[in-house]
C-alpha cells in the first residue's frame, strides 16, 4: 500500500498530461496573440489616418488661404484635382497638391448668402481611402470649414 503511494508521488508526467498542459497554455496564449495582431492593425490604421488627414488639411488650407472672390464654387472630383491644374476656367487659382498613393480627393465649395451678397463659402474636403482589402464600404474622411469675406 505504502509502496503504491510512494510510486504515485514520484512518477513522471505522462504524455497526455503534457499535451493537456500545452493545450491549456495555447488556449491562453491564442487570445493574447490575436489581441496583439489587432493592436498592430490599429497602428496601421493610425498611420493611414495621419496620411489621409494630412492630405485633407493640405487642400482645405489652400482654399482657406486663397482670395475669397477667386475661390470657385461647385464640386471638384479627384480627376480634376491635379497639381498645377486650374481650379476652373473662371479663376486663375491652381491646385497645389502633393502626390499621395491610394487616396481619392473630392472638394465641395458652396456659397452662403445674406442680404443678396455672398458672405461665406462653405468648404468640404472628402478623402476616400481606395479599397485595398476588397471591403464593401471604403473608409471616408471629411473636413469642413467656412471661408469668410473680409471686405
Amino acid at each position, binding site marked *: 500500500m505504502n509502496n503504491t503511494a510512494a510510486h504515485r508521488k514520484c512518477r513522471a508526467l505522462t504524455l497526455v498530461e503534457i499535451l493537456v498542459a*500545452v493545450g491549456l497554455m495555447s488556449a491562453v*496564449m491564442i487570445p493574447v496573440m490575436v489581441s*496583439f495582431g489587432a493592436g498592430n492593425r490599429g497602428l496601421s490604421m493610425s498611420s493611414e489616418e495621419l496620411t489621409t488627414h494630412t492630405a485633407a488639411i493640405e487642400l482645405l488650407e489652400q482654399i482657406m488661404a*486663397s*482670395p475669397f472672390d477667386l475661390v470657385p464654387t461647385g464640386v471638384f472630383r479627384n480627376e480634376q484635382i491635379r497639381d498645377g491644374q486650374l481650379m476652373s476656367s473662371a479663376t*486663375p487659382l491652381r491646385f497645389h497638391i502633393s502626390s499621395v498613393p491610394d487616396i481619392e480627393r473630392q472638394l465641395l465649395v458652396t456659397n452662403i448668402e445674406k442680404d443678396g451678397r455672398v458672405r461665406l463659402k462653405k468648404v468640404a474636403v472628402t478623402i476616400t481611402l481606395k479599397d485595398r482589402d476588397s471591403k464593401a464600404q471604403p473608409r471616408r474622411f471629411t473636413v469642413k470649414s467656412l471661408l469668410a469675406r473680409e471686405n
Partner: protein
Amino acid sequence: MVSRESEKRLYIRSRGFTLVEMLVVIALATTIIGGITLLMTQFRRSFSKGEETGVTLQEGGMFLALLRNDLVNAVFDKRLSPDRWREAIKITPERLAMTVYTGESDQTTLVEYLYEPGSGKGSISRSAGGSRPRTLVNGRIASLSWELATEEIGGSPTASGTPFLWINLQARFGGQDKAGVKGKELVLSTKLFPARLIRQLR
C-alpha cells in the same frame, strides 16, 4: 530468502531509462521548448516593432501639427520691405525660420526648426524666441526636405499678381534600428500654407 517474483518487481522498479526513451523525451522537450521560445521571440520582436512604429507616428504627427500651427500663425516681418515678401519665411536645408504671432500681448516671436540629418537617423528641434531648442523627433528621420514655393495669382508679364506662397515638405520617418528592430516607415508628403501671412501680403 527473496522470491523470484519479488526480485523481478524490484528490478523493474529500479531500472534506468533506455536510450530510446531518453531520445523520445529529448525530442519532445526540444520540440516544445523550441516552439515556445520561437513564439516568444517573435512576440517580443513584433511588440518592439509596434512600439517603435507607435513612437514614430507620435513624433511625426506632433512635428507636423506644430509646424502647421506655426505656419498658420506666421506673419510678415515689419522690418522687411513689402517687395521682399518671398523672404517672409527663411528656409535652408537645415533651418526653417519665421515670425509667428503668439497671441500673448499681441507679440510676435521668431520660431526656428532645426534639422540635423545624421546619416538616416535625423532629428528635428524647435525653438521659439531664442529659447533652448526642444527636440521634436529624435533620431527617427530617414530623410527630410522642405522648400519654399511662390507664385503670383493672376499676374501678367507687365503687372504683378496676388502673392501666394507655401512650403513643400517631404519626410520619411522611422529609419531607426532599435536593437535590430525597425519600425514601419511613415512617409509624409504635403504642402503647408501660411494662411495669415498670405492674407497679410494681400
